[in-house]
């Protein structure tokens, strides 16, 4: 059964956990959907659904921020290890 077509597809960029991402959202039927990708290379790293566009985008961004937070933590850890290996204190 055809439920509908996607309507009002919108795209914008924002920074999440220090990384620029692309947020896409649209309406299908009476619900909104959203996905977030990491732009380069373009992996989808968060998806969300909701009764409003904002709700769907928030859910997708939240999912993406959890994954990007791990990336940021890993980068910080590697930086710290690098400093330790060079005998200096990270700033």
């Amino acid at each position, binding site marked *: *059964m055809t439920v509908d077509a996607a309507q009002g597809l919108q795209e914008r960029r924002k920074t999440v956990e220090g990384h620029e991402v692309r947020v896409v959202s649209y309406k299908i039927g009476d619900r909104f*959907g959203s996905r977030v990708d*990491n732009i380069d290379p373009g992996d*989808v790293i968060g998806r969300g659904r909701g009764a409003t566009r904002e709700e769907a985008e928030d859910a997708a961004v939240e999912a993406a921020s959890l*994954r990007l937070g791990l990336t940021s933590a890993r980068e910080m850890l590697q930086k710290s290890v690098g400093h330790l290996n060079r005998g200096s204190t990270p700033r």
Partner: protein
Amino acid sequence: MTYADTDSLVEAPWAEAHLNDPKVRFVEVDVDTSAYQEAHLPGAIGWDWSKELCDQLTRDILSRESLEALLRRSGIARDTCVVLYGDNNNWFAAWAFWQLRIYGHEDVRILNGGRNKWLADGRPLSDEVPTYAPTTYEASAPDTTLRGLLTDVSDAVKKRVIALVDVRSPGEFSGDILAPPGLPETCQRGGHIPGAASVPWGQVCKPDGTFKSREELEALYAGKGVTRDRPVVAYCRIGERSSHTWFVLKHLLGYPDVKNYDGSWTEWGNLVGQPIER
């Protein structure tokens, strides 16, 4: 100039006109089926890359038997026209395409622009999960000429007669990052395979996700020394982005000898005793 293999790519209007064609099976392929569950092309089935298109126990492509089981329960016969599409700009659809070609399915096609363009164009969608009568599909023996293995790449590094194409992002190629933002690191070292040319996958697409013209694609690869007179091996991090590039080189440009190295950087970047470049 049209693409070399015009039967391997379909445009959205063709797909919409064949949504009810019993000889055509649409399959949405992604890393999981969350997007499929939201909505998909009416009549399409969904394949989960991580569960249905990889052998996670042996880290391998599907065995012939597993692929047959997948196609049988999907209601796909040897003469079915299989149209693959998905999110992530068709990366995982291209992976499925590559495996279907390995096991000899003749009529398999990619929907140009994938899921994103279908949504953007406002074409019909459904949330109904269809069921189809199972088939007795029997696959061919695998065509090993389409798959790059570690030995192929080691030879390429030593002899430099094979063109290696690294389709990852510039940051991954240079070794500045070990994985794209938000994805798990799967290797010990950052960098690239010695001698590889950097041609990020996205350079083959227009902003709407559809493929650039054949002339543009030929100029892109020729400018990087990736020409049809040399064997080519494409790789990325886990082999899905490079299956997209494999599709471009093999089917859109008609290069005669192209392999997808699905071991990719996850394998090479972890090898003991193998060189890398940064």
